[in-house]
């Protein structure tokens, strides 16, 4: 295998890893948009809070002398998902539900307010500095001739792929098979009509916020472990990237969010790989503009039908 090929493989691995986490966060945006047609700008902060909770739980359990890593990770995951979901649910109760039925710009502003509030709340509670966690999962597979180019695929990257895949599959099954999933789909078709048919739409909307927040917490856990660093400002950039991924794939579409996330991640990695890294964001956002020019509703989005 030539160096060029191995290098390409390495960059694809890097891109798909980062893309997977974009996808996890993007789902939160896309689900909320699909149902109530609004962007939840506080979503990036939920991801950040998920990361913080993971760090606190892991540091706490390690401090208590627990050694089994899988158990620590599972406890951290459960705690992070529960607490982040509570935040997601609260955001909906505080910033969206009281404003439902008003001009669409108003909840947008209250969501931005929520985002600023959460960010500053974490700054006050945890300080504004980077919090670091020593590497928990190290090592990985390598292949290719070391004298040519050695491709590394770390266990952590593999874990990100596996967890993302499992979470996506579980969500798809939930949406397509379960009763509550059917209610979600009905709400996204026609919220008013669904309400008339006796489905508790308030509960369904709260549920989408909770699912989005839970997936953001999973992303928070994975990226927290992968990078080993979190600060109160990571939610903004991650949220922006994930939002881009959601728009790229077609906002409102769950497979679209996954596809958008992966495309964005791979584009970033390949741009850094073959051009100076400075152009990373220029190329990825240029791509977004291009795709939206030719497919205004995103790659897998349904053409916008004006809701009456």
């Amino acid at each position, binding site marked *: 295998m030539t160096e060029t090929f191995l290098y390409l493989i390495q*960059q694809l691995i*890097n891109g798909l890893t980062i893309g997977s986490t974009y996808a996890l966060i993007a789902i939160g945006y896309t689900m909320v948009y699909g149902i109530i047609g609004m962007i939840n700008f506080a979503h990036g902060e939920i991801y950040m809070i998920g990361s913080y909770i993971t760090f606190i739980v892991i540091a706490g359990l390690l401090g208590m002398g627990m050694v089994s890593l899988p158990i620590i990770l599972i406890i951290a995951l459960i705690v992070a998902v529960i607490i982040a979901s509570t935040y997601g649910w609260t955001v909906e109760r505080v910033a969206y539900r009281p404003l439902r039925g008003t001009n669409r710009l108003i909840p947008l502003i209250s969501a931005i307010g929520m985002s600023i509030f959460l960010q500053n709340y974490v700054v006050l509670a945890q300080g*504004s500095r980077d919090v670091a966690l020593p590497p928990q999962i190290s090592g990985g597979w390598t292949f290719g001739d070391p004298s040519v180019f050695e491709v590394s695929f770390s266990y952590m990257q593999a874990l990100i792929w596996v967890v993302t895949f499992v979470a996506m599959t579980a969500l798809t099954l939930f949406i397509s098979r379960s009763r509550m999933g059917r209610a979600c789909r009905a709400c996204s078709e026609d919220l008013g009509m669904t309400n008339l048919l006796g489905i508790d739409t308030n509960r369904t909307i709260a549920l989408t916020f909770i699912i989005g927040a839970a997936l953001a917490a999973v992303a928070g856990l994975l990226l927290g472990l992968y990078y*080993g660093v979190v600060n109160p400002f990571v939610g903004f950039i991650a949220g922006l990237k994930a939002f881009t991924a959601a728009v790229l794939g077609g906002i409102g579409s769950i497979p679209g969010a996954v596809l958008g996330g992966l495309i964005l991640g791979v584009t970033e990695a390949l741009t*850094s790989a073959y051009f100076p890294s400075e152009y990373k964001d220029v190329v990825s956002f240029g791509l977004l503009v291009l795709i939206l020019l030719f497919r205004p509703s995103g790659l897998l989005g349904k053409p916008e039908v004006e809701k009456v």
Partner: protein
Amino acid sequence: MKKFTRTLLSVGLAASLYGASAQADTIKIALAGPATGPVAQYGDMQKIGVMAAIEDINNAGGINGDKLEGVIYDDACDPKQAVAVANKIVNDDIQLVVGHLCSSSTEPASDIYEEEGILMITAASTSPSITEKGHQMVFRTIGLDSLQGTLAAEHILNNVKPKTIAVIHDKQQYGEGLATTVKSALEKGGLNITMFEGVTAGDKDFSALIAKLKKEGVDFVYYGGYHPELGLILRQSKEKGFNAQFMGPEGIVNSDLAKIAGEASEGVLATAPKSFDQNPVNQARVEAIKAKGEDPTGPFVFTAYAAVELMKNAIEKTGGTDPEKMAEHLRSNPLDTAIGKIAYDAKGDLTESTFQVYQLHKDGSKTAVK
């Protein structure tokens, strides 16, 4: 009669002196720098130094009876907020500023101070362009990037002698400025730079960049920027089996680098102001700072301390807090301070370099490299 006049005069003089000492007020010094945000640690160093200096001066009776007071302004290392902070300092009628910290904040703020006739001494900003505009009110107690970059390049050429070099920076004024200086100095020394690239400050994923460095067979990386990004680059490099020698400026000299990068931070080279806390002259000051439970080893603690010393001396010598007279005094009168003798050239830069090459360790400490 003559005697009477003299008595009257002396009484009057005494009264006026008495009046002066009765009016002993506080001289406020604004402390501008990041108190929040990702690089707030550096703001803390500046605060520790300034507050220690103010305490020492006040305990020794103040300046002609006047006490100093430090007022903290937070610019979060954000150029926009720095301008807002500078305007606030103007509105609050403060005439002496120690700060700002990040070069990109100092530069826009310094224009405002110059216009308003406020004396500014930065203890940390090393970008050459700050003193290149011919400002009269702008000084520093730290050497320039050009000096720091040249020192780094000399060390690389004479001691490290790498084969394949990459120069990476964070696209900010400080980092890119330094990276450019190092690059041109290395090229002048006959070395080829294989890669010269920017990363985005705040980014968390550098795997693509690292794979590229690995592919190019880079064995030495100079990074112009701050510790949060370099820490992640080091950590991810180790995970990906990329083992080059890294070097950076004083913006990476911080125990948080070791916290983020862990083992990977062992042996990283850095240029930083000399460890003034090791200087016997400062022993009592170091003890006093330690007694308060604060860390005296940060690179900006004593540069900030010296900035206050300069201000105190200028106030005493010019007999008041007229910033313009003080600036004039600073320019022409060298002073012995906590960081050694400070003398200024016409631009407001130090005439002597205060930098040294250090090797950083995974426990957050550093040792000087000969």
